[in-house]
Protein backbone atom coordinates (compact mmCIF):
# COMPACT_ATOMS: atom_id res chain seq x y z
CA UNK A 1 0.00 0.00 0.00
CA UNK A 2 1.34 3.45 -0.78
CA UNK A 3 2.30 5.48 2.26
CA UNK A 4 1.32 8.65 0.48
CA UNK A 5 -0.77 9.37 -2.57
CA UNK A 6 1.38 12.32 -3.55
CA UNK A 7 3.74 11.13 -6.30
CA UNK A 8 7.42 11.61 -5.60
CA UNK A 9 9.86 13.29 -7.95
CA UNK A 10 11.22 9.88 -9.00
CA UNK A 11 7.68 8.70 -9.85
CA UNK A 12 7.13 11.72 -12.04
CA UNK A 13 10.49 11.43 -13.77
CA UNK A 14 9.80 7.80 -14.68
CA UNK A 15 6.42 8.75 -16.15
CA UNK A 16 7.63 12.07 -17.64
CA UNK A 17 7.84 10.93 -21.31
CA UNK A 18 4.18 9.92 -21.19
CA UNK A 19 3.18 13.08 -19.34
CA UNK A 20 4.91 15.27 -21.94
CA UNK A 21 3.35 13.39 -24.85
CA UNK A 22 -0.15 13.41 -23.33
CA UNK A 23 -0.06 17.11 -22.49
CA UNK A 24 1.55 17.97 -25.82
CA UNK A 25 -0.94 15.89 -27.79
CA UNK A 26 -3.89 17.49 -25.99
CA UNK A 27 -2.41 20.92 -26.64
CA UNK A 28 -2.05 20.07 -30.33
CA UNK A 29 -5.74 19.16 -30.49
CA UNK A 30 -6.61 22.56 -28.99
CA UNK A 31 -4.44 24.72 -31.24
CA UNK A 32 -5.12 22.73 -34.41
CA UNK A 33 -8.44 24.43 -35.29
CA UNK A 34 -6.96 27.82 -34.40
CA UNK A 35 -4.10 27.42 -36.90
CA UNK A 36 -4.60 28.72 -40.41
CA UNK A 37 -4.54 26.22 -43.28
CA UNK A 38 -1.19 27.53 -44.49
CA UNK A 39 0.46 26.99 -41.13
CA UNK A 40 -0.72 23.46 -40.48
CA UNK A 41 2.73 22.10 -41.42
CA UNK A 42 3.83 23.40 -38.03
CA UNK A 43 1.84 20.65 -36.35
CA UNK A 44 4.23 18.04 -37.74
CA UNK A 45 7.15 20.06 -36.38
CA UNK A 46 5.49 20.21 -32.96
CA UNK A 47 4.99 16.44 -33.03
CA UNK A 48 8.65 15.90 -33.92
CA UNK A 49 9.73 18.15 -31.03
CA UNK A 50 7.43 16.38 -28.58
CA UNK A 51 8.68 12.94 -29.57
CA UNK A 52 12.30 14.10 -29.37
CA UNK A 53 11.61 15.49 -25.89
CA UNK A 54 10.02 12.21 -24.83
CA UNK A 55 13.06 10.33 -26.11
CA UNK A 56 15.41 12.55 -24.11
CA UNK A 57 13.27 12.19 -20.98
CA UNK A 58 13.14 8.41 -21.24
CA UNK A 59 16.95 8.34 -21.45
CA UNK A 60 17.09 10.61 -18.38
CA UNK A 61 14.62 8.41 -16.52
CA UNK A 62 16.83 5.41 -17.20
CA UNK A 63 19.61 6.96 -15.10
CA UNK A 64 17.49 6.03 -12.08
CA UNK A 65 15.70 2.76 -12.92
CA UNK A 66 12.96 1.32 -10.71
CA UNK A 67 9.22 1.12 -10.27
CA UNK A 68 6.92 4.05 -9.69
CA UNK A 69 3.35 4.69 -8.55
CA UNK A 70 3.47 1.72 -6.14
CA UNK A 71 4.67 -0.78 -8.69
CA UNK A 72 2.34 0.22 -11.54
CA UNK A 73 5.07 1.31 -13.90
CA UNK A 74 8.63 0.09 -14.24
CA UNK A 75 11.56 1.83 -15.85
CA UNK A 76 14.34 -0.60 -16.68
CA UNK A 77 16.57 -1.29 -19.66
CA UNK A 78 13.84 -3.29 -21.36
CA UNK A 79 11.17 -0.62 -21.11
CA UNK A 80 13.63 2.14 -22.05
CA UNK A 81 14.73 0.20 -25.12
CA UNK A 82 11.15 -0.21 -26.30
CA UNK A 83 10.20 3.36 -25.43
CA UNK A 84 13.03 4.66 -27.64
CA UNK A 85 12.11 2.16 -30.34
CA UNK A 86 8.44 3.17 -30.54
CA UNK A 87 9.31 6.88 -30.33
CA UNK A 88 11.77 6.39 -33.17
CA UNK A 89 9.08 4.64 -35.14
CA UNK A 90 6.65 7.50 -34.45
CA UNK A 91 9.26 10.04 -35.52
CA UNK A 92 9.89 8.30 -38.85
CA UNK A 93 6.13 7.97 -39.42
CA UNK A 94 5.61 11.70 -38.86
CA UNK A 95 8.38 12.45 -41.35
CA UNK A 96 6.93 10.22 -44.05
CA UNK A 97 3.35 11.39 -43.47
CA UNK A 98 3.94 15.09 -44.18
CA UNK A 99 4.15 14.70 -47.94
CA UNK A 100 1.63 11.90 -48.05
CA UNK A 101 -1.24 13.96 -46.70
CA UNK A 102 -0.28 16.99 -48.75
CA UNK A 103 -0.50 14.72 -51.79
CA UNK A 104 -3.70 12.88 -50.86
CA UNK A 105 -5.76 15.69 -49.38
CA UNK A 106 -4.13 18.77 -50.76
CA UNK A 107 -3.79 20.09 -47.24
CA UNK A 108 -2.15 19.26 -43.96
CA UNK A 109 -4.15 18.26 -40.96
CA UNK A 110 -2.88 18.56 -37.45
CA UNK A 111 -4.98 16.03 -35.60
CA UNK A 112 -3.27 13.20 -37.45
CA UNK A 113 0.00 14.08 -35.72
CA UNK A 114 -1.79 14.39 -32.39
CA UNK A 115 -3.12 10.85 -32.95
CA UNK A 116 0.41 9.56 -33.54
CA UNK A 117 1.50 11.23 -30.31
CA UNK A 118 -1.40 9.69 -28.37
CA UNK A 119 -0.71 6.30 -29.87
CA UNK A 120 2.90 6.61 -28.73
CA UNK A 121 1.72 7.27 -25.16
CA UNK A 122 -0.15 3.99 -25.26
CA UNK A 123 2.74 2.09 -26.76
CA UNK A 124 5.19 3.44 -24.25
CA UNK A 125 2.82 2.46 -21.41
CA UNK A 126 2.59 -1.03 -22.92
CA UNK A 127 6.37 -1.25 -22.83
CA UNK A 128 6.70 -0.06 -19.25
CA UNK A 129 3.54 -1.32 -17.52
CA UNK A 130 4.13 -3.63 -14.57
CA UNK A 131 0.46 -4.18 -13.98
CA UNK A 132 -2.16 -5.92 -16.10
CA UNK A 133 -4.79 -3.17 -15.98
CA UNK A 134 -2.27 -0.48 -16.92
CA UNK A 135 -1.16 -2.78 -19.72
CA UNK A 136 -4.74 -2.95 -20.94
CA UNK A 137 -5.15 0.83 -20.79
CA UNK A 138 -1.90 1.34 -22.71
CA UNK A 139 -3.03 -1.15 -25.31
CA UNK A 140 -6.36 0.62 -25.75
CA UNK A 141 -4.82 4.11 -25.95
CA UNK A 142 -2.54 2.85 -28.68
CA UNK A 143 -5.26 0.88 -30.50
CA UNK A 144 -8.02 3.51 -30.44
CA UNK A 145 -5.68 6.07 -32.00
CA UNK A 146 -4.71 3.37 -34.51
CA UNK A 147 -8.36 2.72 -35.48
CA UNK A 148 -8.81 6.37 -36.38
CA UNK A 149 -5.51 6.55 -38.26
CA UNK A 150 -6.31 3.44 -40.31
CA UNK A 151 -9.44 5.17 -41.64
CA UNK A 152 -7.98 8.64 -41.78
CA UNK A 153 -8.92 9.44 -45.40
CA UNK A 154 -12.58 9.07 -44.64
CA UNK A 155 -13.86 9.38 -48.19
CA UNK A 156 -11.70 6.49 -49.36
CA UNK A 157 -13.56 3.19 -49.34
CA UNK A 158 -10.43 1.14 -48.71
CA UNK A 159 -9.63 3.28 -45.67
CA UNK A 160 -13.14 2.79 -44.28
CA UNK A 161 -12.97 -0.93 -44.66
CA UNK A 162 -9.53 -1.11 -43.10
CA UNK A 163 -10.60 0.95 -40.09
CA UNK A 164 -13.79 -1.06 -39.59
CA UNK A 165 -12.01 -4.42 -39.68
CA UNK A 166 -9.21 -3.20 -37.43
CA UNK A 167 -11.70 -1.78 -34.96
CA UNK A 168 -14.04 -4.78 -34.78
CA UNK A 169 -11.35 -7.45 -34.60
CA UNK A 170 -9.11 -5.35 -32.35
CA UNK A 171 -11.79 -4.77 -29.73
CA UNK A 172 -12.89 -8.41 -29.98
CA UNK A 173 -9.32 -9.45 -29.14
CA UNK A 174 -9.08 -6.92 -26.33
CA UNK A 175 -12.22 -8.35 -24.74
CA UNK A 176 -10.55 -11.78 -24.65
CA UNK A 177 -7.43 -10.39 -23.06
CA UNK A 178 -9.46 -8.50 -20.50
CA UNK A 179 -11.51 -11.56 -19.57
CA UNK A 180 -8.23 -13.34 -18.96
CA UNK A 181 -7.04 -10.46 -16.78
CA UNK A 182 -10.27 -10.59 -14.77
CA UNK A 183 -9.73 -14.28 -14.07
CA UNK A 184 -6.07 -13.77 -13.17
CA UNK A 185 -7.25 -11.11 -10.72
CA UNK A 186 -9.78 -13.48 -9.22
CA UNK A 187 -7.36 -16.39 -8.90
CA UNK A 188 -4.36 -14.50 -7.56
CA UNK A 189 -5.99 -11.49 -5.89
CA UNK A 190 -3.87 -9.00 -7.78
CA UNK A 191 -3.03 -7.68 -11.20
CA UNK A 192 0.51 -6.61 -10.37
CA UNK A 193 2.92 -8.76 -12.37
CA UNK A 194 5.24 -9.46 -9.40
CA UNK A 195 2.38 -10.31 -7.07
CA UNK A 196 0.80 -12.57 -9.67
CA UNK A 197 4.12 -14.38 -10.06
CA UNK A 198 4.44 -14.84 -6.31
CA UNK A 199 0.85 -16.07 -6.05
CA UNK A 200 1.44 -18.63 -8.81
CA UNK A 201 4.60 -19.82 -7.10
CA UNK A 202 2.88 -19.78 -3.73
CA UNK A 203 0.09 -22.23 -4.45
CA UNK A 204 -2.41 -20.67 -6.86
CA UNK A 205 -1.25 -23.28 -9.38
CA UNK A 206 -2.14 -26.18 -7.10
CA UNK A 207 -5.47 -24.67 -6.03
CA UNK A 208 -6.83 -23.73 -9.42
CA UNK A 209 -4.34 -24.77 -12.05
CA UNK A 210 -6.92 -25.43 -14.73
CA UNK A 211 -8.60 -22.04 -14.46
CA UNK A 212 -5.18 -20.38 -14.39
CA UNK A 213 -4.26 -22.05 -17.66
CA UNK A 214 -7.58 -21.01 -19.22
CA UNK A 215 -7.03 -17.44 -18.06
CA UNK A 216 -3.52 -17.29 -19.54
CA UNK A 217 -4.84 -18.85 -22.75
CA UNK A 218 -7.52 -16.13 -22.98
CA UNK A 219 -4.83 -13.49 -22.51
CA UNK A 220 -2.67 -15.18 -25.12
CA UNK A 221 -5.49 -14.91 -27.65
CA UNK A 222 -5.50 -11.16 -27.10
CA UNK A 223 -1.72 -10.92 -27.45
CA UNK A 224 -1.70 -13.14 -30.54
CA UNK A 225 -4.18 -10.79 -32.25
CA UNK A 226 -2.02 -7.77 -31.52
CA UNK A 227 1.21 -9.34 -32.78
CA UNK A 228 -0.76 -10.83 -35.72
CA UNK A 229 0.20 -14.43 -34.97
CA UNK A 230 -1.60 -17.23 -36.78
CA UNK A 231 -4.46 -18.13 -36.58
CA UNK A 232 -5.36 -14.64 -35.34
CA UNK A 233 -3.62 -12.79 -38.18
CA UNK A 234 -6.54 -12.52 -40.63
CA UNK A 235 -7.09 -8.82 -39.93
CA UNK A 236 -3.52 -7.80 -40.79
CA UNK A 237 -3.59 -8.12 -44.61
CA UNK A 238 -6.89 -6.26 -44.99
CA UNK A 239 -5.92 -3.52 -42.54
CA UNK A 240 -2.44 -2.90 -43.97
CA UNK A 241 -3.68 -3.02 -47.55
CA UNK A 242 -6.52 -0.60 -46.93
CA UNK A 243 -4.87 1.86 -44.57
CA UNK A 244 -2.81 4.82 -45.82
CA UNK A 245 0.74 3.56 -46.46
CA UNK A 246 2.40 5.59 -43.64
CA UNK A 247 -0.23 4.35 -41.20
CA UNK A 248 0.34 0.77 -42.33
CA UNK A 249 4.03 1.32 -41.59
CA UNK A 250 3.24 2.68 -38.14
CA UNK A 251 0.86 -0.15 -37.27
CA UNK A 252 3.08 -2.93 -38.54
CA UNK A 253 6.22 -1.54 -36.91
CA UNK A 254 5.52 0.43 -33.73
CA UNK A 255 2.28 -1.20 -32.62
CA UNK A 256 3.75 -4.64 -33.18
CA UNK A 257 6.97 -3.81 -31.28
CA UNK A 258 4.94 -2.58 -28.30
CA UNK A 259 2.72 -5.67 -28.40
CA UNK A 260 5.79 -7.91 -28.34
CA UNK A 261 7.21 -5.89 -25.46
CA UNK A 262 4.10 -6.57 -23.43
CA UNK A 263 3.99 -10.26 -24.38
CA UNK A 264 7.65 -10.75 -23.43
CA UNK A 265 7.32 -8.94 -20.14
CA UNK A 266 4.21 -10.85 -19.10
CA UNK A 267 5.72 -14.17 -20.15
CA UNK A 268 9.04 -13.45 -18.46
CA UNK A 269 7.68 -12.06 -15.21
CA UNK A 270 4.14 -12.98 -14.12
CA UNK A 271 3.80 -16.24 -16.01
CA UNK A 272 7.43 -17.34 -15.83
CA UNK A 273 6.49 -20.22 -13.49
CA UNK A 274 4.18 -21.50 -16.21
CA UNK A 275 6.76 -21.33 -19.00
CA UNK A 276 7.03 -25.11 -19.35
CA UNK A 277 3.28 -25.29 -19.97
CA UNK A 278 3.37 -22.36 -22.39
CA UNK A 279 6.17 -23.80 -24.47
CA UNK A 280 4.07 -26.14 -26.61
CA UNK A 281 1.55 -23.38 -27.31
CA UNK A 282 4.24 -20.87 -28.29
CA UNK A 283 6.09 -23.48 -30.36
CA UNK A 284 3.00 -24.30 -32.41
CA UNK A 285 2.00 -20.65 -32.80
CA UNK A 286 5.49 -19.65 -33.94
CA UNK A 287 5.60 -22.38 -36.57
CA UNK A 288 2.06 -21.76 -37.81
CA UNK A 289 2.70 -18.02 -38.03
CA UNK A 290 5.87 -18.44 -40.09
CA UNK A 291 4.27 -20.90 -42.48
CA UNK A 292 1.00 -19.01 -42.95
CA UNK A 293 2.76 -15.67 -43.40
CA UNK A 294 5.34 -16.87 -45.91
CA UNK A 295 3.14 -19.06 -48.04
CA UNK A 296 0.34 -16.51 -48.24
CA UNK A 297 2.87 -13.80 -49.17
CA UNK A 298 4.05 -15.91 -52.10
CA UNK A 299 0.66 -15.59 -53.79
CA UNK A 300 0.16 -11.82 -53.46
CA UNK A 301 0.30 -9.36 -56.31
CA UNK A 302 -0.43 -6.25 -54.22
CA UNK A 303 2.75 -5.09 -52.52
CA UNK A 304 1.06 -3.73 -49.40
CA UNK A 305 -0.74 -7.03 -48.93
CA UNK A 306 2.48 -8.94 -49.53
CA UNK A 307 4.25 -6.83 -46.91
CA UNK A 308 1.38 -7.49 -44.50
CA UNK A 309 1.85 -11.23 -44.85
CA UNK A 310 5.59 -10.78 -44.59
CA UNK A 311 5.06 -8.93 -41.31
CA UNK A 312 3.01 -11.92 -40.12
CA UNK A 313 5.95 -14.17 -41.01
CA UNK A 314 8.35 -11.90 -39.12
CA UNK A 315 6.11 -12.12 -36.07
CA UNK A 316 6.63 -15.88 -36.39
CA UNK A 317 10.43 -15.54 -36.31
CA UNK A 318 10.20 -13.30 -33.25
CA UNK A 319 7.92 -15.85 -31.57
CA UNK A 320 10.67 -18.43 -32.07
CA UNK A 321 12.87 -16.31 -29.81
CA UNK A 322 10.02 -15.85 -27.32
CA UNK A 323 9.60 -19.64 -27.22
CA UNK A 324 13.25 -19.96 -26.15
CA UNK A 325 12.29 -18.51 -22.71
CA UNK A 326 15.78 -17.32 -21.94
CA UNK A 327 17.63 -14.06 -21.54
CA UNK A 328 19.37 -14.68 -24.85
CA UNK A 329 15.92 -15.09 -26.36
CA UNK A 330 14.67 -11.79 -24.93
CA UNK A 331 17.78 -10.01 -26.22
CA UNK A 332 17.17 -11.59 -29.64
CA UNK A 333 13.54 -10.35 -29.60
CA UNK A 334 14.74 -6.84 -28.84
CA UNK A 335 17.39 -6.84 -31.55
CA UNK A 336 15.01 -8.35 -34.09
CA UNK A 337 12.37 -5.72 -33.41
CA UNK A 338 14.90 -2.90 -33.72
CA UNK A 339 15.98 -4.03 -37.17
CA UNK A 340 12.42 -5.03 -38.14
CA UNK A 341 11.10 -1.56 -37.31
CA UNK A 342 13.76 0.12 -39.45
CA UNK A 343 13.35 -2.09 -42.50
CA UNK A 344 9.54 -2.07 -42.35
CA UNK A 345 9.31 1.70 -42.08
CA UNK A 346 11.83 2.01 -44.90
CA UNK A 347 10.05 -0.32 -47.27
CA UNK A 348 6.67 1.29 -46.61
CA UNK A 349 8.20 4.74 -47.18
CA UNK A 350 9.39 3.62 -50.62
CA UNK A 351 5.94 2.15 -51.34
CA UNK A 352 4.36 5.46 -50.27
CA UNK A 353 6.44 7.29 -52.86
CA UNK A 354 5.97 4.86 -55.73
CA UNK A 355 2.22 4.53 -55.07
CA UNK A 356 1.61 8.15 -56.18
CA UNK A 357 -1.60 10.10 -55.63
CA UNK A 358 -4.56 7.99 -54.59
CA UNK A 359 -2.23 5.00 -54.07
CA UNK A 360 -2.74 3.86 -57.65
CA UNK A 361 0.54 1.99 -58.12
CA UNK A 362 0.57 -0.64 -55.39
CA UNK A 363 0.84 -3.77 -57.54
CA UNK A 364 4.24 -5.47 -57.61
CA UNK A 365 4.36 -4.98 -61.40
CA UNK A 366 4.14 -1.22 -60.88
CA UNK A 367 7.72 -1.42 -59.59
CA UNK A 368 8.99 -2.48 -63.02
CA UNK A 369 11.92 -0.47 -64.27
CA UNK A 370 12.18 1.46 -61.03
CA UNK A 371 15.94 1.37 -61.28
CA UNK A 372 15.81 3.51 -64.45
CA UNK A 373 13.07 5.80 -63.22
CA UNK A 374 14.41 6.40 -59.71
CA UNK A 375 17.83 4.83 -59.14
CA UNK A 376 18.28 6.13 -55.59
CA UNK A 377 14.87 4.86 -54.54
CA UNK A 378 15.64 1.48 -56.11
CA UNK A 379 18.90 1.22 -54.13
CA UNK A 380 17.11 2.06 -50.87
CA UNK A 381 14.42 -0.54 -51.59
CA UNK A 382 17.15 -3.09 -52.36
CA UNK A 383 18.72 -2.51 -48.94
CA UNK A 384 15.37 -2.97 -47.16
CA UNK A 385 14.44 -6.08 -49.12
CA UNK A 386 17.90 -7.60 -48.50
CA UNK A 387 17.39 -6.94 -44.82
CA UNK A 388 13.92 -8.53 -44.89
CA UNK A 389 15.43 -11.61 -46.55
CA UNK A 390 18.25 -11.64 -44.01
CA UNK A 391 21.28 -11.13 -46.26
CA UNK A 392 24.57 -10.31 -44.46
CA UNK A 393 25.63 -6.67 -43.96
CA UNK A 394 22.02 -5.76 -43.16
CA UNK A 395 20.28 -5.75 -39.79
CA UNK A 396 17.93 -8.51 -40.85
CA UNK A 397 20.79 -10.99 -41.07
CA UNK A 398 21.97 -10.60 -37.50
CA UNK A 399 18.37 -10.42 -36.28
CA UNK A 400 17.60 -13.85 -37.74
CA UNK A 401 20.99 -15.17 -36.64
CA UNK A 402 20.44 -14.25 -32.99
CA UNK A 403 16.85 -15.51 -33.00
CA UNK A 404 17.84 -18.94 -34.27
CA UNK A 405 20.93 -19.02 -32.04
CA UNK A 406 18.71 -18.37 -29.01
CA UNK A 407 16.37 -21.15 -30.16
CA UNK A 408 19.28 -23.58 -30.53
CA UNK A 409 20.61 -22.65 -27.08
CA UNK A 410 17.23 -23.67 -25.65
CA UNK A 411 17.30 -26.98 -27.55
CA UNK A 412 14.56 -26.03 -30.00
CA UNK A 413 16.32 -27.81 -32.85
CA UNK A 414 13.26 -28.65 -34.91
CA UNK A 415 11.79 -25.19 -34.63
CA UNK A 416 15.14 -23.76 -35.77
CA UNK A 417 15.32 -26.04 -38.79
CA UNK A 418 11.73 -25.30 -39.82
CA UNK A 419 12.33 -21.58 -39.25
CA UNK A 420 15.40 -21.60 -41.48
CA UNK A 421 13.51 -23.43 -44.21
CA UNK A 422 10.80 -20.81 -43.91
CA UNK A 423 13.18 -17.91 -44.26
CA UNK A 424 14.60 -19.55 -47.38
CA UNK A 425 11.09 -19.77 -48.86
CA UNK A 426 10.54 -16.13 -47.90
CA UNK A 427 13.50 -15.02 -50.02
CA UNK A 428 11.48 -15.96 -53.08
CA UNK A 429 8.79 -13.29 -52.82
CA UNK A 430 11.20 -10.54 -51.85
CA UNK A 431 13.46 -11.44 -54.77
CA UNK A 432 10.46 -11.26 -57.10
CA UNK A 433 10.13 -7.55 -56.32
CA UNK A 434 13.86 -7.09 -56.98
CA UNK A 435 13.62 -8.93 -60.29
CA UNK A 436 10.69 -6.78 -61.41
CA UNK A 437 12.51 -3.65 -60.33
CA UNK A 438 15.83 -4.41 -62.06
CA UNK A 439 15.03 -6.70 -65.00
CA UNK A 440 11.68 -5.57 -66.36
CA UNK A 441 11.33 -2.40 -68.42
CA UNK A 442 8.99 0.25 -67.09
CA UNK A 443 5.37 -0.38 -67.99
CA UNK A 444 3.57 1.91 -70.45
CA UNK A 445 1.17 3.42 -67.95
CA UNK A 446 3.69 3.90 -65.16
CA UNK A 447 3.95 7.60 -64.56
CA UNK A 448 7.03 9.32 -63.23
CA UNK A 449 7.51 8.94 -59.50
CA UNK A 450 6.69 12.22 -57.79
CA UNK A 451 9.71 14.08 -56.50
CA UNK A 452 10.24 13.15 -52.87
CA UNK A 453 9.77 15.77 -50.18
CA UNK A 454 12.40 16.40 -47.54
CA UNK A 455 10.51 14.53 -44.82
CA UNK A 456 10.10 11.24 -46.60
CA UNK A 457 13.66 11.44 -47.93
CA UNK A 458 14.92 11.83 -44.38
CA UNK A 459 12.81 8.85 -43.24
CA UNK A 460 14.15 6.62 -46.02
CA UNK A 461 17.78 7.66 -45.49
CA UNK A 462 17.51 7.25 -41.71
CA UNK A 463 16.01 3.76 -41.96
CA UNK A 464 18.54 2.68 -44.61
CA UNK A 465 21.47 3.94 -42.52
CA UNK A 466 20.01 2.28 -39.43
CA UNK A 467 19.52 -1.02 -41.25
CA UNK A 468 23.10 -1.02 -42.52
CA UNK A 469 24.45 0.07 -39.13
CA UNK A 470 22.76 -2.86 -37.38
CA UNK A 471 24.17 -5.14 -40.06
CA UNK A 472 27.75 -3.93 -39.69
CA UNK A 473 28.01 -3.03 -35.99
CA UNK A 474 25.31 -5.06 -34.24
CA UNK A 475 27.27 -5.22 -30.98
CA UNK A 476 26.24 -1.85 -29.52
CA UNK A 477 22.51 -2.56 -29.70
CA UNK A 478 22.96 -6.22 -28.85
CA UNK A 479 25.06 -5.48 -25.74
CA UNK A 480 22.38 -3.14 -24.46
CA UNK A 481 19.67 -5.69 -25.23
CA UNK A 482 21.64 -8.40 -23.43
CA UNK A 483 22.00 -6.23 -20.33
CA UNK A 484 18.36 -5.12 -20.46
CA UNK A 485 17.09 -8.70 -20.78
CA UNK A 486 18.43 -9.53 -17.32
CA UNK A 487 16.33 -6.80 -15.77
CA UNK A 488 13.02 -8.31 -16.87
CA UNK A 489 11.79 -9.94 -13.71
Amino acid at each position, binding site marked *: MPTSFIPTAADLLRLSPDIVLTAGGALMMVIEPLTGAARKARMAAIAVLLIAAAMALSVMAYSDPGTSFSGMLVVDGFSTFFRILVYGCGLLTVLMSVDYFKRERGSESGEYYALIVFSLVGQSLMASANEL*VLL*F*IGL*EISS*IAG*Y*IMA*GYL*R*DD*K*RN*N*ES*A*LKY*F*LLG*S*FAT*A*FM*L*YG*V*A*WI*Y*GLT*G*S*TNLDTVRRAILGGAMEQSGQMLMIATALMFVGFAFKISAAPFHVWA*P*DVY*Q*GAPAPVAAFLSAGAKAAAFAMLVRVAASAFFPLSAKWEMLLWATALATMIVGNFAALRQSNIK*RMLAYSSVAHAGYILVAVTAHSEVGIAAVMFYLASYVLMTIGVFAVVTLVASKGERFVEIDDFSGLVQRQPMLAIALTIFLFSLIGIPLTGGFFAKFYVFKAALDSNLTWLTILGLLNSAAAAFYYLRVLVVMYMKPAAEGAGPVDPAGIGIKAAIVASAVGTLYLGVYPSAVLDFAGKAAQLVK
Partner: protein
Amino acid sequence: MPPELTQLLPASVPLSWYLVLSAILFSLGIAGFLFRRNIITVFMSIELMLNAVNLTFVAFSYHLKQVDGHIFSFFVMVVAAAEAAVGLAIILTVFKNRATLEIDEVSSMKL
Protein backbone atom coordinates in the same frame (compact mmCIF):
# COMPACT_ATOMS: atom_id res chain seq x y z
CA MET B 1 -41.65 -12.43 0.83
CA PRO B 2 -43.19 -15.29 2.84
CA PRO B 3 -40.77 -16.77 5.42
CA GLU B 4 -40.80 -20.30 3.96
CA LEU B 5 -39.50 -18.90 0.64
CA THR B 6 -36.57 -17.05 2.23
CA GLN B 7 -35.44 -20.30 3.83
CA LEU B 8 -35.24 -21.95 0.44
CA LEU B 9 -32.92 -19.29 -0.98
CA PRO B 10 -29.30 -19.02 0.17
CA ALA B 11 -28.43 -16.06 2.39
CA SER B 12 -26.32 -14.49 -0.35
CA VAL B 13 -25.72 -15.33 -3.98
CA PRO B 14 -22.57 -17.48 -4.16
CA LEU B 15 -19.60 -16.37 -6.24
CA SER B 16 -19.92 -19.21 -8.72
CA TRP B 17 -23.36 -18.00 -9.88
CA TYR B 18 -21.91 -14.65 -10.90
CA LEU B 19 -19.01 -16.34 -12.67
CA VAL B 20 -21.27 -18.71 -14.56
CA LEU B 21 -23.53 -15.82 -15.56
CA SER B 22 -20.57 -13.78 -16.80
CA ALA B 23 -19.23 -16.78 -18.72
CA ILE B 24 -22.64 -17.17 -20.38
CA LEU B 25 -22.74 -13.46 -21.25
CA PHE B 26 -19.20 -13.65 -22.64
CA SER B 27 -20.08 -16.67 -24.78
CA LEU B 28 -23.21 -14.94 -26.04
CA GLY B 29 -21.01 -12.01 -27.03
CA ILE B 30 -18.64 -14.30 -28.95
CA ALA B 31 -21.56 -16.02 -30.68
CA GLY B 32 -23.08 -12.67 -31.62
CA PHE B 33 -19.76 -11.43 -32.96
CA LEU B 34 -19.26 -14.51 -35.09
CA PHE B 35 -22.77 -15.10 -36.40
CA ARG B 36 -24.51 -11.72 -36.66
CA ARG B 37 -24.20 -9.89 -39.97
CA ASN B 38 -25.22 -6.36 -38.98
CA ILE B 39 -22.26 -4.18 -38.00
CA ILE B 40 -24.12 -2.48 -35.14
CA THR B 41 -25.15 -5.84 -33.68
CA VAL B 42 -21.58 -7.10 -33.97
CA PHE B 43 -20.42 -4.00 -32.14
CA MET B 44 -23.05 -4.53 -29.42
CA SER B 45 -21.79 -8.11 -29.00
CA ILE B 46 -18.35 -6.73 -28.16
CA GLU B 47 -19.91 -4.44 -25.57
CA LEU B 48 -21.67 -7.47 -24.09
CA MET B 49 -18.31 -9.23 -23.77
CA LEU B 50 -16.84 -6.20 -21.98
CA ASN B 51 -19.79 -6.16 -19.58
CA ALA B 52 -19.23 -9.84 -18.83
CA VAL B 53 -15.66 -8.88 -17.91
CA ASN B 54 -16.97 -6.14 -15.63
CA LEU B 55 -19.26 -8.58 -13.87
CA THR B 56 -16.34 -10.95 -13.32
CA PHE B 57 -14.20 -8.14 -11.91
CA VAL B 58 -16.89 -6.95 -9.53
CA ALA B 59 -17.83 -10.46 -8.39
CA PHE B 60 -14.21 -11.35 -7.63
CA SER B 61 -13.63 -8.02 -5.98
CA TYR B 62 -16.63 -8.58 -3.67
CA HIS B 63 -15.47 -12.10 -2.94
CA LEU B 64 -11.88 -11.04 -2.14
CA LYS B 65 -13.16 -8.08 -0.07
CA GLN B 66 -10.95 -5.73 -2.07
CA VAL B 67 -11.81 -2.48 -3.77
CA ASP B 68 -9.38 -2.99 -6.69
CA GLY B 69 -11.76 -4.94 -8.90
CA HIS B 70 -14.43 -2.27 -8.61
CA ILE B 71 -11.95 0.35 -9.77
CA PHE B 72 -10.84 -1.82 -12.69
CA SER B 73 -14.41 -2.15 -13.85
CA PHE B 74 -14.60 1.64 -13.97
CA PHE B 75 -11.50 1.71 -16.16
CA VAL B 76 -13.10 -0.86 -18.44
CA MET B 77 -16.25 1.27 -18.69
CA VAL B 78 -14.27 4.39 -19.57
CA VAL B 79 -12.32 2.55 -22.24
CA ALA B 80 -15.52 0.98 -23.59
CA ALA B 81 -17.06 4.44 -23.87
CA ALA B 82 -14.04 5.76 -25.77
CA GLU B 83 -14.15 2.74 -28.01
CA ALA B 84 -17.86 3.24 -28.66
CA ALA B 85 -17.29 6.85 -29.67
CA VAL B 86 -14.59 5.94 -32.18
CA GLY B 87 -16.34 2.77 -33.33
CA LEU B 88 -19.66 4.44 -34.07
CA ALA B 89 -17.84 7.20 -35.97
CA ILE B 90 -16.11 4.57 -38.10
CA ILE B 91 -19.39 2.74 -38.70
CA LEU B 92 -20.98 6.05 -39.70
CA THR B 93 -18.33 6.78 -42.34
CA VAL B 94 -18.70 3.25 -43.69
CA PHE B 95 -22.45 3.77 -43.97
CA LYS B 96 -21.98 7.15 -45.68
CA ASN B 97 -19.70 5.65 -48.34
CA ARG B 98 -21.50 2.38 -48.96
CA ALA B 99 -25.09 2.86 -47.72
CA THR B 100 -25.08 -0.56 -46.12
CA LEU B 101 -24.52 -2.03 -42.68
CA GLU B 102 -24.21 -5.63 -43.80
CA ILE B 103 -20.76 -6.83 -42.81
CA ASP B 104 -20.34 -9.15 -45.81
CA GLU B 105 -20.80 -6.29 -48.24
CA VAL B 106 -17.97 -4.31 -46.70
CA SER B 107 -15.30 -6.51 -48.19
CA SER B 108 -13.65 -5.28 -51.35
CA MET B 109 -10.18 -6.63 -50.65
CA LYS B 110 -9.50 -10.20 -51.65
CA LEU B 111 -8.42 -12.79 -49.13
